[in-house]
């Protein structure tokens, strides 16, 4: 009887290790299937359409709005120190280093990651994945891989678009509305941002975020309970875990590599 507490601990440990093993196996399977034919290019194109093209509107709109707000806030703060000429640097650096990759990842998690998880989870519920297995088609290769890869590929592009639209939004507010000099805005932005420190960092961040969100969304969907509650739990789990993971990794990446 006294062993029960130890037994519970042992059981927990074993199930934790088993869970980690399943995650590692799932990631390994996606990675292996990505470099091994068949490449399922048409399915990848379809997923890029779903994740990328359909997210364009929200990304562009959010980017322009965030840039405009940054321009306005930056102007108010900088004008206290008489440094409004650095507005381009403030808007550009905050967008490139932090806001671009993080907000893009959060938006894509909400817009496309949740849909991805719900789609796979409902396939689990309606036993479509079992149907694929019966035709000896590996569902990880056929369903999961294109989705995860599309996330990884699309995230840096959406991030770059977000930043470009943000820079444009900041320009519109700073130059057109508040009357700063356009050349000063652009040159302070271009002088402050360097490729190796900032742009490479933003691309690295968004690729890591893309891989994370793609993995979380597909894994949540793939391991969903085959019930309607399971579908909703997978969707909610993707958004919550995805967003928190993105923010956590953002801190870790910034602390480790200073980007």
């Amino acid at each position: 009887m006294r062993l029960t507490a130890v037994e519970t601990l042992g059981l927990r440990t074993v199930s934790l290790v088993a869970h980690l093993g399943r995650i590692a196996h799932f990631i390994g399977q996606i990675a292996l299937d990505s470099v091994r034919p068949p490449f399922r290019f048409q399915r990848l194109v379809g997923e890029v359409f779903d994740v990328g093209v359909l997210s364009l509107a929200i990304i562009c709109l959010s980017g322009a709005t965030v840039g405009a707000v940054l321009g306005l806030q930056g102007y108010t703060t900088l004008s206290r120190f008489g440094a409004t000429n650095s507005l381009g640097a403030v808007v550009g650096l905050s967008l490139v280093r932090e806001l671009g990759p993080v907000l893009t990842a959060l938006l894509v998690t909400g817009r496309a990651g949740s849909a991805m998880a719900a789609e796979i989870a409902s396939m689990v519920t309606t036993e479509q994945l079992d149907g694929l297995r019966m035709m000896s088609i590996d569902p990880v290769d056929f369903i999961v891989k294109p989705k995860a890869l599309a996330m990884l590929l699309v995230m840096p592009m959406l991030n770059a678009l977000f930043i470009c639209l943000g820079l444009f939004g900041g320009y519109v507010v700073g130059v057109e509305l508040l009357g700063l000099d356009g050349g000063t805005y652009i040159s302070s932005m271009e002088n402050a941002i360097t490729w190796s420190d900032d742009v490479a960092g933003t691309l690295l961040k968004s690729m890591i975020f893309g891989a994370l969100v793609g993995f979380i969304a597909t894994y949540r969907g793939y391991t969903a309970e085959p019930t309607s509650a399971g579908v909703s739990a997978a969707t909610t789990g993707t958004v919550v875990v995805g967003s928190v993971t993105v923010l956590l990794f953002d801190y870790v990446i910034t602390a480790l590599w200073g980007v």
Partner: protein
Amino acid sequence: MQPSPTRDLIVGLFVAVGLAAIGYLSIQVGGLSYKGPGGLRLYAVFNEIGGLKTRAPVSIAGVTVGQVVAIDLDKSMRARVTLDVDRKLVLPSDTSAGIRTSGLLGDQYIALEPGAEEAPLKSGDEIAMTESALSIERLIGRFVHDSGVEEKK
């Protein structure tokens, strides 16, 4: 999923726009460029570099011709600044280097002033004549100190 030409076209356009955005950020905003086999490496030793940082511009007559690659301390405890300058430039060997500030509170940069010698500077040469950074704090300190002494007299 059936192949659909319209969808493929839209995805192609999306990828092109995305890559263009990445390219714009890298090349225009980030200033990424292929530098070829490196520029002219010059060294300059200063007593005081003030707030000079790596990647600060190197200019001649206000035109940017290179940048500061590295700053370290040499054996005699002076600042040794490594400059990377455009290879096509032919600088006389008596060129001097000075640390200037753009504007009153702006960033510091290195200004090169070409001399009149015939022999050109080669990669790896050291610039002999240097002018250290002007420290406003030190100037003010000296001024205050001097005027205080005069009042006592």
